[in-house]
């Protein structure tokens, strides 16, 4: 990947993370851990990969995105705001009764949200339906969906996986955000879905493993998923829950808890330092 593009994406990912912290802090609730683990992939999708138009969010030929792990909406909202779908100030009103930013994504309320999600396992089915719809209409847009690694414990995910492969939906790319933590503990402690790659492979999908925080690897994975071989593709992205905020990394308690004032300041200053560092590097060139 081009060095400048990579740096640009890294900076956008940090800005998304800052929005995650800002949003959950102001809401006094929400899910920062998994939002931070998908921030790099969200930045890649909204600032490089997906063909979308913030001025025309319902544009028929746009690529579609379904956040099947809907609780990490703060990362989606950050990406949408930064991409220009709505003003970034709205992030501070996340989860407030007057805001159009719900705790989980709502199709009817938020510009740029392609499907209401939040109840785990359901988003992928809608994404599969969209991929089928694209084919029926002879459209060549792609459909992307992100699942949590705990989410794939839902049986519906495998119903959808079976159907997508059976119908040869190669315009569908799923990402499993493999941060290895769910509310009650590690995946192994709760109910291990491993080996995830072999399961999807057995279901007839192209399977790509990547580091979900390395843009070169993310880019390679999505580029590989572009190939049309009659199979849907899944990218199993190895990630760190809480990525980018040191005290949240690998810490299960940050799944669904908002930072308090001091924690907020610490997180924001850490992220700002990293952003300034990247901006300085960019300015030097």
């Amino acid at each position, binding site marked *: 990947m081009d060095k400048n593009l990579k740096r640009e994406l890294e900076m956008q990912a940090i800005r998304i993370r800052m929005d995650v912290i800002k949003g959950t802090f102001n809401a006094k609730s929400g899910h920062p851990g998994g939002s931070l683990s998908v921030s790099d992939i969200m930045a890649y999708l909204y600032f490089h990969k997906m063909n979308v138009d913030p001025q025309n969010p319902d544009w*028929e030929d746009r690529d*579609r995105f379904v956040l099947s792990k809907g609780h990490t909406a703060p990362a989606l909202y950050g990406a949408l705001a930064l991409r220009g779908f709505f003003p970034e100030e709205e992030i501070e009103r996340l989860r407030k009764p007057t805001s159009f930013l719900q705790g989980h994504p*709502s*199709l*009817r309320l938020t510009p740029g949200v*392609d*499907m*209401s999600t*939040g*109840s785990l*396992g*359901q*988003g*992928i*089915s*809608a*994404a*599969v*339906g*969209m*991929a*089928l*719809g*694209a084919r*029926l*209409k002879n459209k060549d847009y792609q459909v992307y969906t992100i699942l949590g690694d705990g989410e794939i414990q839902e*049986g*519906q995910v495998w*119903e*959808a996986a*079976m*159907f997508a492969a*059976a*119908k040869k939906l190669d315009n569908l790319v799923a990402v499993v955000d493999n941060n290895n933590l769910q509310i009650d503990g590690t995946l192994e402690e709760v109910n291990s879905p491993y080996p995830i790659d072999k399961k999807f492979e057995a279901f007839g999908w192209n399977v790509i493993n990547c580091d979900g925080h390395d843009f070169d690897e993310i880019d390679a994975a999505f580029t590989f998923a572009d190939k049309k071989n009659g199979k849907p593709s899944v990218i199993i992205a190895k990630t760190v829950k809480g990525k980018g905020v040191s005290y949240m990394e690998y810490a299960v308690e940050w799944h669904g808890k908002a930072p308090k004032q001091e924690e907020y300041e610490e997180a924001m200053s850490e992220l700002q330092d990293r952003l300034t560092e990247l901006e300085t590097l960019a300015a030097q060139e």
Partner: protein
Amino acid sequence: MADIITKATRMGYAEGLLYLGETDEKVVVLDADLAGATQTAKFKQKHPDRFFDCGIAEQNMIGIASGLSLSGFTVFASSFAMFASGRAYEQIRNSVGYPHLNVKIGATHGGISVGEDGASHQCNEDIALMRTIPGMTIINPADAVEAKAATIAAAKYDGPVYMRFGRLAVPVIFDRDYKFEWGKAQVLTEGSDVAILATGLMVNEALMAAEQLKNDGISARVINVHTIKPLDEECVINAARECGCVVTAEEHNVIGGLGGAVCETLSENCPTPVLRVGVDDEFGRSGPAVELLHLYGLDAAHIVDAAKKAITLK
């Protein structure tokens, strides 16, 4: 007496789908390995490119329907009422109802008249489940003619609809030129002593009950409530006000269905004695459909008894 023609409402559903297949290229039909029973196989045969069998996976089917509707299609997703409304309840609630998508649930084999398959397949709770979803329209046609008309009307309406059809062949009561009026309850016989509000296969039973009541000198107003949600409150309130007592009749649990809806409306707007004929909060059992209907009190005789009792409560 003219011969009575009988036909299951699921047959009317299939006829409606076939009509839509010819006239509306946006219509797509899904099934969950029951196409032969739900009758969607007829659509499949004519329009294989717009029919998808999702296999035995109703939850995923509802999500597929959502995704297709978001791609601009009018989607009919079919299974038995038990699995459509029960198994996939939360998918319908969160992936269809909440985003208010243009998905029609074509649920066949509703109620106890499923017959021999028994309680596991006799869904007497679907209307109650669907009623609690904001923005959901619920249609329960009385015969195959109405079923066809309702199916065609549902495609023209932009939003989620739950349609309940039956397995059992039931008398055809409407003419071919019957016009389905969206959301309007339909007065079939005028009357002033008691109002019988019926839905589904109980509409014909209500008509027979009215005949028997007439012989006893009782004037019964029979109303076909094909659309249970939104309920035609004006018609229901007028009937209660003018007749002074009400009997509801449905092939459904007396809790949460038409009887529940009517009681809720009347208690707030026009308190009136209401007796509910329906499945008395119990599970069904195996047996021939018609026998079961009598066994569970879903027939004209029980409506007559309820009507006479209701009149004493005025």
